[in-house]
């Protein structure tokens, strides 16, 4: 537990700033297939994004 109490660095992306472009590999449960999520697609499609980080699969979220 002691090592998990270490403070982490503050968010590099600041509120009100543009988030740097990113691509990330995904699993899409609705399609049962793998895919790629791209921030630029969200901007092109005028969609909001809620990015929800959690520690690990197979645990409570």
């Amino acid at each position, binding site marked *: 537990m002691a090592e*998990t109490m270490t403070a982490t660095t503050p968010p590099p992306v600041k*509120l009100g700033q543009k988030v740097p472009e990113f691509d990330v590999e995904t699993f899409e449960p609705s399609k049962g297939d793998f895919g790629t999520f791209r921030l630029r697609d969200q901007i092109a499609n005028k969609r909001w994004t809620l990015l*929800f980080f*959690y520690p690990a699969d197979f645990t409570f979220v």
Partner: protein
Amino acid sequence: MGCDIVTCSTDTKFTHLAWQRSEKELANVKYTMAADPTGKLSRMFGVYNEDNGLDLRGSFLIDPEGKLMGSEMNFYNLGRNIEEQLRKFKANIYMAKKGGNEVCPSKWKDEGDKTLVNPGAKMVGRVHEALQGS
């Protein structure tokens, strides 16, 4: 205006698939499950814990122009309240629609609730009166 939910951990996409298929609580999920095994995306948002390679519980709302509009981070031992996430998301959509001169106070829950318009010098020391609508 629509919003897409993207969950992310440092597990691989293969683990996401296996978890979603085996955990009955996840049988009906529609959201995208992003895999960040290198921690690259997680570091961008400051949620990556270098000590154990796991992400902290962080939520980030990005607007349709790619701007970061909301951030919330909890340590491992505290879950997030979905009602509050939804409240903040609704408030952001509402303010984006109204365009800049209207703000949502802490008690704002949904469209129709009291907002503050043009907060400025006149409102300094008079927030109570402004919230009462006088």
